[in-house]
């Protein structure tokens, strides 16, 4: 088989698996699990094959035009360069892990069939985005991911949080997709094609007229999809979905689509310095803000969600400095360790019966209950905190290095201001990242108090996947920068000494400070009992999680934070904690700026419709009714009246006839 055929099969197999799963889910439940896992696994194998054949060399391009589509042709095009091949392997790996993990996690879920089919469909869409060489086809995958995300986040639709979160995810990403679509059309009009290669050629030739406008429009869609400020608010709420979904969609793949898209079209963004500065500022705000928010969250998954936003900020920051190698490198390593973090968090939630860090910190021996999750999560948190030699260190170093390059004026790709912004923000975020990673680890695994409840052993499918993902979290970074530099535009990804020392230093400082704060506050934990535990030893993890999500607000008064004085984050953040826990009140701002005006407008329209428009309608009915009533009154039943009217008419007619006859 040629590389092209293999590459076509990669998105096609999960798609067929999804279709078959949806069709057979009811009639043949026994096939659902194989249909969920095997196509994804096959796609992973094929993606690895494609990567091996592509080999980091020249990009594979294949085009076929199904039918003429007006002025700008829409073609089924593949464009597989080193980035695409690597990202596809990441997507395949994470998707396969998630599918295997889900067989255990949603073991007894009645909606598992549709869930697995949607995950397959989602995987297929992500593959399409990764491999597509045509922006319209890419948009198809982009939007399919949006709708799959909506369905999967709303998997626990019995809980109001999940319903609200799914709607919010859909609406917010769509809010970005509208300018994204306009930007795509404008870009295609300027370049005369939807093909990425031709667009890049047009950009290189300078024939794209308004790069700033187009880049900013596209950035809106990227911000929506990749959860960048100010459209990031959907991601923390989307944690109301099942944990595997969070791992797949909201950590490793879907949010990576935006970054990946910018990486593909980076020359276009580089053509506009304004867009690069906007990107840099967006990345910086996102990084710092989300790291602060992560430090204040109580829900373990929300910590990870804000962490995802921050790490995506790193990627956009790398893009803002014009180094897409660093961005995709971080995307890969982050995809691996963030998927691991989420999946391990799912295990922990199941074992602890709660998603609240405050409740976990009051449990002794949770790590002995879930040793696999403990060890793998430790690895992943070290990777997240960028401690050498874990993979996160190398990728984050490459981002810091790229920013430092730009800041010191070594490259003309991006303005130095963008470089400085990204560099400073990245260092602050590195400190905060280490802080919240440490806090998460300490609260989850070093709890004191009552013995953690024994909910039995976790399913093998779930534990095995954790170890599979632990390998890249541990080793991917070190391998990549040595073995695969030619996949990343031949960029040198070797850590530089200055940034390595700086980054590791601030990370260590963050970790140590948090540890100290924890030592200081942990004594308080015994004095204030807190927490609610959902115990379903016989149920599967999804059941526990759904209950846990639904009970967090009643138990702690808030979806995001808990009134826990023993939280080191509370001590570290001080007065900022309250705002950080609420995501800096961005939701409230949106509510005031958009939701309430829209609601007011809706009630105005409702008023206009009910009181003004309907008045006309009702009057149109009432007037003939009134006239009819008036006419009906003539129907008195009195024969004399009738005859009077008849004769009066006769007289009038007769007089008229006489007048006409006599010519008067």
């Amino acid at each position: 088989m040629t590389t092209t055929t293999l590459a076509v099969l990669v998105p096609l197999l999960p798609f067929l698996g999804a279709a078959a799963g949806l069709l057979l889910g009811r009639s043949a439940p026994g096939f659902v699990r194989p249909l969920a896992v095997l196509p994804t696994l096959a796609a992973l194998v094929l993606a690895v094959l494609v990567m091996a054949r592509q080999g980091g060399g020249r990009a594979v391009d294949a085009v076929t035009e199904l039918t003429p589509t007006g002025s700008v042709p829409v073609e089924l095009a593949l464009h597989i360069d080193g980035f695409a091949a690597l990202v596809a392997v990441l997507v395949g790996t994470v998707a396969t892990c998630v599918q295997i993990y889900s067989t255990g996690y949603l073991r007894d879920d009645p909606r598992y069939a549709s869930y697995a089919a949607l995950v397959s469909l989602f995987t297929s869409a992500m593959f399409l985005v990764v491999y597509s060489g045509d922006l319209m086809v890419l948009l198809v995958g982009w939007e399919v991911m949006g709708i799959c995300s909506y369905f999967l986040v709303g998997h626990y639709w019995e809980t109001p949080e999940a319903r609200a979160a799914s709607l919010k995810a859909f609406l917010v990403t769509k809010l970005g997709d509208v300018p994204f679509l306009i930007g795509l059309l404008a870009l295609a009009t300027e370049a005369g094609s939807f093909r990425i290669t031709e667009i890049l050629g047009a950009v290189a030739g300078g024939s794209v007229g308004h790069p700033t406008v187009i880049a900013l429009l596209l950035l809106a869609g990227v911000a929506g999809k990749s959860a960048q400020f100010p459209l990031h608010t959907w991601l923390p709420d989307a944690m109301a979905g099942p944990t595997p979904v969070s791992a797949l969609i909201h950590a490793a793949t879907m949010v990576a689509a935006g970054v990946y898209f910018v990486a593909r079209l980076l020359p276009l963004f580089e053509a506009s310095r304004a867009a690069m500065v906007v990107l840099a500022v967006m990345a910086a705000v996102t990084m710092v803000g989300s790291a602060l928010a992560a430090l204040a969250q109580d829900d373990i998954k929300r910590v990870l969600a804000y962490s995802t936003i921050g790490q995506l900020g790193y990627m956009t920051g790398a893009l803002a400095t014009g180094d897409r190698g660093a961005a995709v490198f971080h995307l890969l390593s982050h995809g691996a360790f963030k998927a691991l973090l989420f999946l391990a968090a799912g295990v922990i939630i199941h074992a602890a019966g709660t998603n609240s860090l405050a409740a976990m910190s009051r449990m002794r021996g949770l790590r002995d209950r879930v040793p696999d999750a403990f060890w793998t999560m430790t690895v992943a948190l070290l990777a997240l905190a960028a401690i050498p030699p874990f993979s996160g260190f190398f990728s984050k170093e490459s981002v810091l290095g790229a920013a430092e390059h730009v800041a010191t004026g070594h490259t003309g790709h991006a303005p130095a201001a963008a470089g400085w912004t990204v560099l400073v923000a990245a260092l602050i975020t590195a400190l905060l990242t280490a802080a919240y990673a440490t806090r998460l680890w300490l609260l989850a695994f070093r709890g004191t108090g009552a013995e953690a409840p024994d909910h039995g052993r976790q399913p093998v499918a779930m534990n095995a996947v954790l170890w599979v993902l632990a390998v890249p979290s541990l080793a991917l970074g070190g391998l990549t920068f040595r073995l695969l530099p030619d996949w990343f535009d031949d960029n040198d990804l070797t850590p530089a000494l200055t940034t390595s020392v700086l980054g590791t230093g601030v990370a260590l400082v963050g970790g140590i400070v948090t540890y100290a704060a924890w030592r200081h506050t942990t004594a308080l934990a015994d004095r204030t009992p807190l927490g609610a535990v959902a115990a379903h030893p016989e149920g599967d993890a999804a059941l526990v999680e759904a209950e846990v999500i639904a009970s967090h607000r009643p138990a702690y008064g808030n979806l995001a934070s808990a009134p826990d004085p023993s939280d080191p984050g509370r001590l570290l953040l001080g007065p900022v904690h309250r705002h950080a826990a609420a995501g800096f009140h961005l939701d409230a701002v949106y509510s005031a700026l958009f939701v309430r005006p829209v609601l007011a407008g809706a009630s105005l329209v409702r008023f206009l419709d009910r009181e003004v428009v309907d008045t006309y309608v009702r009057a149109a009915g009432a007037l003939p009714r009134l006239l009819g009533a008036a006419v009906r009154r003539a129907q008195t039943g009195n024969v004399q009246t009738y005859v009077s009217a008849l004769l009066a008419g006769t007289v009038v007619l007769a007089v008229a006839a006489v007048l006409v006859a006599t010519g008067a």
Partner: protein
Amino acid sequence: MHLAYPAVLSALLFCTGLYGVLARRNAILVLMSVELMLNAVNLNLVAFDVWLSKAAEETLHSGQALTLFTIAVAAAEIGIGLAIVLAVHRNRGTSDIDRLRDTAEGREPDGPDTDTLATGAAGEKAEATA
């Protein structure tokens, strides 16, 4: 004699009878008014017959013959009419025309016979569908 005299008298009598038909409440008074109208027509017929039999050599005397017929028909009419009025009076207890309003719009059926019931129901149905 001028033809206008009987013609005008006839017209006035006719309209007087018309007024009576339209304005009187008692059915028998209405019948009297009808008689007045018939007689006005009779006068007209006779007058024109006399005129035509002299002026136009009309030998059939159709006007007078018709007058006789009219008188006979009027007699029959008054007989039948009175019978009807008596029957109505017996059934309804009244012979006032403006109380016989079974065909009025939206009227509840109050008659004993099923006909009025049916028409009342039909009227209600028609109102409901309208």
